[in-house]
């Protein structure tokens, strides 16, 4: 049974709460069941990445959804991690979709796109096929494109300065249509599942200026952090094990947009700042470079004055003193700016 567009918009409207999956489990189940049973073509490619996004979605999904998500994943037209289809059939599916012989509903790209032979997938006529070529050809055919994880969305760790393999985000390769970015290292499985649930219904979620669904990336980690009270009282941890705010140990929560504190990870087990780990802002375009790096620091900076919020850029190590809002914007700058100043690039 297919749920109506109206129902689904209702679902999308409340995506912000961590509990949405519990309230809407049956609706979400219906969507994925329908997608698994119907003739929906979804291709999931892997490029310059470490497969953490795939692992996250498989192991961390809500227990009530694991079975339908597994069925859905097994029904994907192409998914290198889990599909049981045989090689010849698998490659033909990629070729058929790339040539337009079969329609492609959703293209999911996990990983950044490095230059040419730094990453190849398969051979055609004895020649290795650059990953970039698959992304370009399949992207041109896909109705919806999802860039899964920080590497696909913004370049991520493999694009870290000096970006040795010229890794680019999917949106720089597929320029003719919108790319939905789901950054995170890895993204929360719920973000992926709920976004796909939208897209499978033909609904594009509302996006922020970095093309991330507002529902998941609308608030800062800081706003909902369990240590926020300490911050407001001006009490700061001096070592990671202390219960106080991690701000002065390098936490980037104030400039990181993600709802980790309300959703929690690994089926409600924990999240970074709750576990004493300063937020690394892994969902932001600048990750893993300045001002987000160095990621943490043991140095205790000057105690904050009564003027809150403290300028996060002091912690982030940026020379520019900016107000919190301005600093957030700075951290959000697209990578392409940084790349112009890249020190050294490998040539092929």
């Amino acid at each position, binding site marked *: 049974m297919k749920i109506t567009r109206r129902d689904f918009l209702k679902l999308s409207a409340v995506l912000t709460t961590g509990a949405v999956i519990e309230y809407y489990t049956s609706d979400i189940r219906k969507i994925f069941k329908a997608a698994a049973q119907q003739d929906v073509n979804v291709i999931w490619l892997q490029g310059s990445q470490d497969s*953490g996004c795939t692992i996250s979605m498989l192991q961390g999904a809500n227990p009530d959804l694991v079975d339908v998500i597994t069925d859905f994943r097994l029904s994907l037209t192409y998914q290198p991690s889990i599909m*049981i289809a*045989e090689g010849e059939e698998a490659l033909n599916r990629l070729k058929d979709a790339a040539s337009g012989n079969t329609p492609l509903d959703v293209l999911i790209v996990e990983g950044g796109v*490095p230059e040419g032979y730094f990453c190849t997938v398969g051979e055609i006529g004895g020649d290795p096929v650059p990953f970039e070529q698959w992304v370009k050809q399949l992207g041109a055919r896909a109705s919806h494109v999802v860039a899964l994880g920080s590497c696909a969305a913004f370049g991520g760790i493999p694009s870290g300065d000096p970006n040795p393999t010229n890794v680019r985000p999917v949106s720089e390769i597929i320029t003719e249509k919108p790319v939905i970015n789901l950054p995170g290292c890895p993204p929360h499985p719920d973000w992926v599942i709920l976004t796909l649930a939208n897209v499978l219904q033909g609904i594009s979620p509302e996006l922020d200026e970095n093309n991330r669904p507002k529902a998941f990336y609308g608030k800062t980690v800081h706003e909902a952090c369990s240590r926020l009270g300490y911050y407001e009282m001006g009490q700061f941890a001096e070592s990671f094990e202390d219960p106080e705010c991690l701000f002065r140990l390098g936490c980037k929560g104030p400039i990181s947009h993600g709802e980790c504190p309300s959703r929690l990870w*690994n089926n409600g*087990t924990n999240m970074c700042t709750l*576990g*004493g780990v300063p937020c690394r802002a892994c969902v932001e375009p600048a990750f893993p470079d300045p001002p987000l790096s160095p990621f943490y620091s043991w140095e205790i900076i000057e105690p904050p004055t009564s003027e809150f919020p403290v300028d996060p850029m002091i912690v982030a190590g940026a020379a520019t003193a900016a107000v919190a809002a301005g600093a957030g914007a700075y951290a959000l700058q697209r990578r392409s700016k940084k790349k112009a100043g890249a020190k050294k690039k490998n040539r*092929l």
Partner: protein
Amino acid sequence: MSETFVVDPVTRLEGHLKVKVEIENDKIVDAQCIGTLYRGIEQILVGRDPRDAPVITCAICGVCHETHQITSSFCLENAAGIRPPVNAYAIRNIIETATTIYSNLLSILALCGPDYDLYGLGNDKWAQVLKEVIIPPQRLCHQIIATFGGKTPHHWSSVPGGETKKPTAETRTSILTKLSQIKEAYEHIAPTILGYLDDHQDLKEYGVGPKNFVSYGVYPDPENPEDEDSFYFKRGIFSKGERSEFNVDWINEDVTYSWYTDESGGNPAEEIPPEPQYDKLTSTGERAYTWAKAPRYKGEVFEAGPLARMIVSGFYTPKSQHGASVHDRIYARALEIGKLIEAMPIWVSKLKPGEPTSTKFEVPTSASGVALWEAPRGALGHWIKIEDEKISRYQVITPTAWNCSPKDSNLQNGPVEQALIGTQIADRENKKEIVRTIRSFDPCLACTVHMIRDGKELKPISI
């Protein structure tokens, strides 16, 4: 007349892998292991604050990310000359144990499984097996890691100096409860796996490899971590039927057949970050063929992984008359899960609620550090050099580098290549020996394998 077969992609290995074999009279006479992704993580690290290294190196692998984070933290602690508290060692042992149980289950069931008529993996029962048998214990492993690490994959709680989360009495109970559930699942799964392997003697006949094994050792006694004899899995090598001491100075990376300049490579403590040179020709005019380097120990080829760990630690003796085989690799990997389930309560008992988990780490002005550890798939080493409080060199040698290494200057093939060469193909239409051998080295993510013959694809193994 020989035929060339290309298996690309062999995705169940972290990153991208391609394997090319030459077959003559139904026998593999040559093999090439080809890494098809280069990311340059070591280049990205140069010039950074050393404390960034655990987070950056974590992204080397999305399956055993914990291992890199821990090894990198040890490496920085070694450079700074500090020793983290007992709690940190206990937590790292627990995280590593959970990671290895997770990864071994993944390898045996989800990756190797479909190549065998095991559990109905690979047929229409696949989804059900995945949901009911494979995923539940793996989720528990991840929850144990997230208990300390905040989230997983990429837990990020192992920092230079120790760990970030203080254990409580409740933490101990919660881990043991999850462990007992994992144990229950393992007791259900293990007889099927081991029984299957015992019933299929042909699996002892191929996939032999170099018969030299290296284990860096792992799981130190948290109270006495510097004593190598306290390691639960021992450090050492096993070669020509004998066990001997391991010396880190004898590792050398050969790049003769790698797509890097000849200036790259060398001893990991000294070598420069690799300089890419795609399609390089060797001095004899042959084509280099991979992004992987070839680590060698005393100039010889060594295999890393659970089989190496189990042999070096005296927990396992290969049953194949050839000294190693596909059977032995999977068998040892399955038995290792049992050893780890036995060991986990030891580390849990060393957790000291309320006591510190980290010591202060200060970035040294200039220093060198090394850390040797065992990833689920085998020997893992990190080397750092710090100058002016920044990283000036960083080297990582992964177990995959050992196992999937190419030929070296002495024309010795890497372990996977050696394990393939000499293999007799029983069925021309269904060359299952090839992928079974590759996957027995614990390739990483589940995928499909396709074979291309002179540009024309052939049907891969039928399942």
